[in-house]
């Protein structure tokens, strides 16, 4: 029990504490590509602090709107508790990969319902897009994780990690990992897939009426997703040798996630935003193809 609580606190502190830094790194990368100086690395922390203290402007929207940010960040933190960060996932006894997928979707639910509740047409368009992004991207994540599950014979994360580390690299897992990587860009809402927010088109979409602490929570949730999905990718789809010493695994994990942050940041900087229909066809054609190929390889044992 004490171990569970300790791990849980560790996960939450690391995810919440480091997520803005990852965002800061991405902003810096963007600035480098732009030939700019760019903001300091801690700028996202400052942004969040500023937003937390700012006045919260509330449209007459009721409870669903009010609960949105809390539910969104809560669900993301819950997903964080199911995430292995080199350490075993603290809540491994409470949920497996499917539960993880659904808690991530729950964060989307909070965004979408909050968007609908705000009563702004832009929020409706944005929430509608968010929903479409969820069902073009989540299946890819699901297929990739199911591939890993088929390889491991189990849907729980610790089993998957152990079995992959033991079995070594395989074709199917490479496919699944690539699919997961391609979906990662959309999961963290970066270009070319920041379609739901699209500030030049629909002015942050579902967040258009958000301000102050509510917006801060949504931002934190979106930053945290980068670390969560990055860690899943590193832990599940990279056959890492385990040192057995958790601080070492933890550092290795975050080092690799750092590499992912740079990759995501670069892709983010050199792409225009796709349209929602283009992104859907992108995911349905290319990514699903890659993911299903992984699944097929997995079921023939490769």
């Amino acid at each position, binding site marked *: 029990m004490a171990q569970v609580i300790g791990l849980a606190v560790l996960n939450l502190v690391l995810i919440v504490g480091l997520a803005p830094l990852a965002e800061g790194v991405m902003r810096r990368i963007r600035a480098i590509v732009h030939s700019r100086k760019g903001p300091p690395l801690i700028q996202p922390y400052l942004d969040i602090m500023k937003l937390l203290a700012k006045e919260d402007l509330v*449209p007459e929207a009721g409870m669903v709107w009010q609960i949105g940010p809390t539910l969104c960040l809560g669900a993301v933190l819950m997903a964080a508790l199911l995430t292995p960060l080199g350490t075993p996932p603290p809540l491994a*006894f*409470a*949920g497996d990969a499917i539960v993880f997928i659904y808690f991530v979707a729950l964060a989307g639910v909070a965004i979408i319902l909050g968007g609908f509740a705000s009563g702004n*047409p832009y929020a*409706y368009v944005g929430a509608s897009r968010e929903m479409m992004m969820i069902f073009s991207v989540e299946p890819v994540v699901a297929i990739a994780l199911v591939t890993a599950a088929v390889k491991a014979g189990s*849907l729980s994360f610790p089993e998957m990690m152990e079995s992959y580390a033991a079995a070594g690299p395989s074709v199917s897992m490479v496919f699944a990992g690539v699919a997961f990587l391609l979906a990662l860009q959309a999961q963290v809402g970066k270009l070319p897939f920041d379609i739901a927010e699209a500030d030049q088109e629909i002015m942050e979409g579902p967040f258009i009426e958000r301000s102050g602490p509510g917006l801060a929570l949504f931002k934190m949730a979106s930053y945290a997703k980068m670390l969560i999905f990055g860690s899943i990718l590193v832990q599940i789809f990279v056959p890492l040798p385990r040192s057995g010493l958790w601080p070492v695994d933890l550092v290795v994990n975050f080092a690799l996630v750092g590499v992912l942050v740079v990759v995501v940041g670069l892709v983010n900087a050199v792409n225009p935003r796709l349209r929602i229909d283009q992104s859907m066809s992108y995911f349905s054609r290319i990514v699903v193809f890659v993911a299903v190929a992984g699944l*097929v390889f997995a*079921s023939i044992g490769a």
Partner: protein
Amino acid sequence: MTPVQAVMHAVVLLVLGAVVTAVVSRSRSTCAYLALLFVAAASALALWGGAVRLLSSELAPAPATVAAVSGIGASLTLAVDRFSGFFLLIIGVIAFLSTLYSTSYMRIYQREHPARFYPILLLFFAGIIGVVTVRDWFFFLVFWEFMTICSYFLVIYDKENPSVLRAGFKYIVVTHVATILILIAAVVLWHTAEPHSFSFAASAQAMGKLAETTPIALHVLLALWLIGFATKAGILPFGDWLPDAYPAAPSGASAAFAGTMTNLGVYGLLRIFVDLLPGSQFSTVWGVAIALLGTGSIFVATLASLSQGNAKRLISFCIIGQMGYVFLAIGMGAYFMSSNPTLALVGLLAGLFHLMNGVFYKSLLFFTTGSLRYRTGVGDLGMMGGLARLLPVTALMAGIGALSISGMPPFNGFSSKWLIYQVSVIGGIGFPLFLLFGLTAMFISLVTLAALFKYLGAAFLGQPSQHVAHLTEKRNDVPASMQVPQVILGLCCVAFGLFPMLPLTAVYRAVTPLTTALSGTTLSGALGTSALGLTFTADGAAAGVWHPLASTVALGICMAISYGIARMAQAPSRVVPVWYCGVDLPQRLGHFHAHGFYEPFRRAFERVYVTTGTPKTAYPTTLAKIFDVDAWLYGPLVKAGSRVAERFSRSHVGIPQWYLVWQVVGMVLVLAVLFSVMR
């Protein structure tokens, strides 16, 4: 009083109630309350009967023969085994709640006479109770037909509306095709059985005989049954009547249909494929077929639901999708019955658990649409908006229902879907097709979410349309008699989500006595020993875990942390108007029309399900044509008989001559084919 007696009393009470309510129908309220009284008593009896049987250790009670038609080998044999008891519990709950709901809801039909509703509703319940307890194909079909005719009259209750009549006609034609298929199968078995008998026991033997002599004939029979029961359950492409008929019926009746009648398709399916069918190779083959049908329905119906503009129609399509989940799970369970009892058990458990969960959220969602109609008078989502302000409790319950039906943790839909995914993933290792089915189901549960968000977003959230703007100024939720059923079902959704072991135990007790294939399995062996969480164990290794209580508590803690972060700086807040790029926009212009939800996605998938009434797109793919059942099967029938239907529904008596002729001719033809095969 034995369970069988309780059930008989319940049926008698319901029939009596029908007579009484018909007599006193001059007063609307008296009629309503008397109906409620009778249904309450009957429900109590049914619940008692079901509970007693489920809790008892007696596995297979002896059937009680009440009456016999000796000439044709048919006898009115009744029995309440645990499986029937399980269904009796569901029927008892839903019958009571939907009647309670109807007492207030039916006030909106001022033009129609109550005698056309309550007595028929009571007879309908009687028919349903009969179907799940009878042990003889002849009387099964009698009750089945009784139920179908009653439900038909409930569907066409609002008879001034021509679209309702069309829906009703389509319903009765389609379900009678199904009845005929079941009848054919029953007649063939009667013919095969020695001596000729309609009883279930005899048919089991007859199937065993056919399996050895002419397996093809048995396959054909199973196909007939599958189609017949799938039609009743609303599985596409046969259940095409459902999205027309459910919205046409009054919401109380729709909820009753969704909670009871459609499930009887599953009841029949399990009776045939698990209880009566001997021989493993049949269940293996037909398991895949059932799963395939289920997955097809999941996919097509749920995608179709996205583009619906009418609240009830949208939910009707989602219901078909949810039935698809049940079929998928049962199909997988049947497939594994011979090879892997654990997976088979979990598959069947998942299917029935999902069915049970479905009863709660499907009825709940129909209640909420009824509440919307009750307060606003409209059913079109495009004409609603912002109604959470008017109906806060209904909105909350609709939210719970929506999250449950789309399988969001920690609501009940998630627990059963989680089981389905486990079976499909772990079972899929050996049979990869199930992986595809499982992933489709996962994808579609998000689409269900989207469809239900369309319902929530268009009806309850956002800005009101000009049709309802005048209503949303103050809170005015529906009367208590409509709220109570909603709240009870909502609480069930939450409770069964948090404590899935409780209902799963009941399901386990109901399903294991059906077949010897499961006799070696235990619930704790498959799903762990914890009373709170589920640990799916396949082949001795833990394959997946879901601990709803721990997860919910953890989520609660995470949300508390989030809230703490949000309030850390004590930021002030202020109420402001919605921002429309700096212009003062009239409220009605802020209303977002339901038609626009997920428009690109809808456009991408709109050809998956084409309905009559919409202009036909010149889309050449065979997929669209195959799923366009309206066009090649039902459409012509409905069209040809629409005038007759009108006369038919006005007169309320008799069945059109041509229809009987068609039924007889069809029966003769199919019988002829079958006998020629068997020779």
